[in-house]
């Protein structure tokens, strides 16, 4: 498959870009932050997303969605990255929709997927527990109690955790932290007794929460997939999330770079445009090359996910690792080349730096994914 967008995909990009740049430029995020908006995103805009078919983009058509693929999801994420729009798209439409589609039984799919597609249900995967993304280190405990289970433990960096209507919780039903065996996914009502949600205001002013589970009772029906056997499902779903976040970082990097190059063409010092200085030109050129290479690696990963998710892991690791280092470089150069202006809150560049830092941690940072590639290659 060619590593360029098809005509249909270009049209999807254009319509997403039109909506997002019009309704949610960076000032949208700034307003949500400054007004201390309790939800941290715009429900109205989310309904527009649903009307345009984006909310259910990955949801199969039989459940009311568009039944599109990960390349298409990446296109939306890239546009979200350009304006830093806070949106349930990643947690609900990409990750949760994928978990339910790939691992849910018929009843679970019928109950939740149509609501995701029509924009009426927000859902999120609660996976991380420690400071770093280590899915196999999951230690939140689920013990059998009666016909169901009781959950105890805590989750961190649960994206949209404080507004979600449905939590998909990774728990350990057997084995010890670090083992692949013994992981199970549960569908949990955030209003259930024993669930305590603390919204965490993050550096990037996007939505996340810490959630504690104190003997939370769930029925056997709330198990998603097989008991003890969630690792395989998680591998695939996390890779989908990684590919999506890589795409967001490509959009973010490209936008911050475009703004920086424009600044180099307009700012004068020593009687010259600063873009005339070779020291800056060469750094800008290197960054451009980095971004193009990362863009290609990300498209490759998304296509690999669409083609055969079981074989996509190395390509996804490459994409997420590259996206992390490239975005980090792009925002650092962006702030540096904007000089003192780059340090002001009034200027948007800082928002990109903050979001890049969060994206880097989401679903594993560059070191994590570089390590995964080394292991996959057997050294």
């Amino acid at each position: 498959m060619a590593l360029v967008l098809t005509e249909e995909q270009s049209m999807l990009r254009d319509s997403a870009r039109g909506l997002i740049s019009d309704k949610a430029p960076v000032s949208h995020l700034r307003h949500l932050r400054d007004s201390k908006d309790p939800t941290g995103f715009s429900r109205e805009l989310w309904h527009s997303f649903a009307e345009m078919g984006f909310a259910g983009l990955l949801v199969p058509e039989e459940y009311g969605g568009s039944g599109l693929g990960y390349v298409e999801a990446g296109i939306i994420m890239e546009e979200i990255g350009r304006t830093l729009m806070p949106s349930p798209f990643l947690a609900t439409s990409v990750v949760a929709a994928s978990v339910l589609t790939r691992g849910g039984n018929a009843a679970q799919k019928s109950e939740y997927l149509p609501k995701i597609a029509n924009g009426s249900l927000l859902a999120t995967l609660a996976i991380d527990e420690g400071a770093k993304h280590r899915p196999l280190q999951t230690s939140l405990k689920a013990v059998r109690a009666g016909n169901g289970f009781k959950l105890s433990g805590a989750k961190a960096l649960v994206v949209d955790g404080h507004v979600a209507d449905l939590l998909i919780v990774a728990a350990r039903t057997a084995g010890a932290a670090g083992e692949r065996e013994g992981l199970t996914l549960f569908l949990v009502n955030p209003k259930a007794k024993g669930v305590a949600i603390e919204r965490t205001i993050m550096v990037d002013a996007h939505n996340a929460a810490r959630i504690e589970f104190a003997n939370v009772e769930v029925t056997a029906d709330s198990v998603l997939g097989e008991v003890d056997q969630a690792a395989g499902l998680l591998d695939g779903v996390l890779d989908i999330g990684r590919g999506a976040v890589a795409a967001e970082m490509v959009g973010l990097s490209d936008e911050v770079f475009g703004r920086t190059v424009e600044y180099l063409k307009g700012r004068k010092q020593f009687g010259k445009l600063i873009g005339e200085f070779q020291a800056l030109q060469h750094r800008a050129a290197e960054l451009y090359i980095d971004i193009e290479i990362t863009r290609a690696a990300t498209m490759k990963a998304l296509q690999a996910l669409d083609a055969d998710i079981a074989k996509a892991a190395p390509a996804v690791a490459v994409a997420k690792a590259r996206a992390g280092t490239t975005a980090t470089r792009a925002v650092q150069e962006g702030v540096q080349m904007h000089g003192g202006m780059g340090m002001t809150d009034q200027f948007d560049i800082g928002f990109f730096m903050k979001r890049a830092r969060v994206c880097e941690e989401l679903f594993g940072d560059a070191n994590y994914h570089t390590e995964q590639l080394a292991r996959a290659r057997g050294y």
Partner: protein
Amino acid sequence: MTDLKTSDSESADLETFRTETRAWLEANCPPEMRKPATSDADVFWGGRNAKFSSEPQRIWFERMRDKGWTVPDWPKEYGGGGLSAAEHKVLRAEMARIGARPPLSSFGIWMLGPALLKYGNEAQKKVHLPKIAAGEVRWCQGYSEPNAGSDLASLQTRAESDGDDFIINGQKIWTSYANYADWIFCLVRTDPTAKKHDGISFILFDMTSKGVSTKPILLISGYSPFCETFFDNVRVPKSHVVGTINRGWDVAKYLLQHERAMISGMGERGVGRPLGQIAADSVGTDGQGKLDDAMLRGRIARFDVDEAALAACAERAVDLAKAGQAHPAFSSAMKYYGTELNKRRHEILMSAGGVDALEWESERSRQGARPRAWLRTKANSIEGGTSEVMLGIVAKRILDLPGA
């Protein structure tokens, strides 16, 4: 619906092509040609004096030549395979699948051919392209001069008019394999009064012409792949100019794009054993099978990430060109990154090899193959335009930065 059906039948045709190609390659590519080339003798360059280093090399070359697959995407009338871009991609993928070597390597294929296809007249195409495709003529490139390196357009080799001929005098340097080449494509100054880019012509001539001499240059690798090339009253018909007289810079630049794409693809990317496993041979592994040098392991892993990403970008560059969306200066971006990456690869190999990688002359070290290859890569970021020149081109032509 009509469109959908067309594309369905196109992709069905492509699948048929893939199946047939796979079967043909399986039947016709000798097992010895399915391993990466490890020495110069493993590469077949063609030419009047060419010798095959092995029987499988000859068989593989001849079979591919007979299908036109030394130049799969050139038109059949010029000795090519006449494949579409999509079919060519399939052939490349199928060759990569079994690790098949290129049957013929040549500057005629990589550089002159594309320039002739775009700028050559019909007679020039008919004379030269089939001989390139068939490996009968080996070409070299007369570009750089002692005082015209990065500033190539300041070249001074002059061609003075004498009736229907030019008389050429001057000196070229870094002429790769000039001592083995049959013909040269050469930049000469045909109008010394014009501005430096405007008085240059692109001309072809036989290296056995009277007045041509070459002298190999010994490099830090101990090899002499480059020569100094001297022209002393060399007589060349004006009909050998490609494109318009004094407009040779257009041809030169177009050819450089291809040269840069070629150099960016140098190195053993994606074939052979993974770097981490090569390193494990000398460094060893710990109880978990991890390379027993955490810092080196991290360095290799970061290299592998970048290498895989660059491979995706190279694939995308081809796809963009096909779709008519490529920026003409993008080959400079690829050249920069590809050559810097290849230097990194060889620094890692030297570090992994430790003391064993220092031997310069022994059977054990295959006559110092590793350190010589390491030193050779240092030229990658100089030849065909330095890394600094590449970044300047990206800044000026792609980013449109001022005054670059």
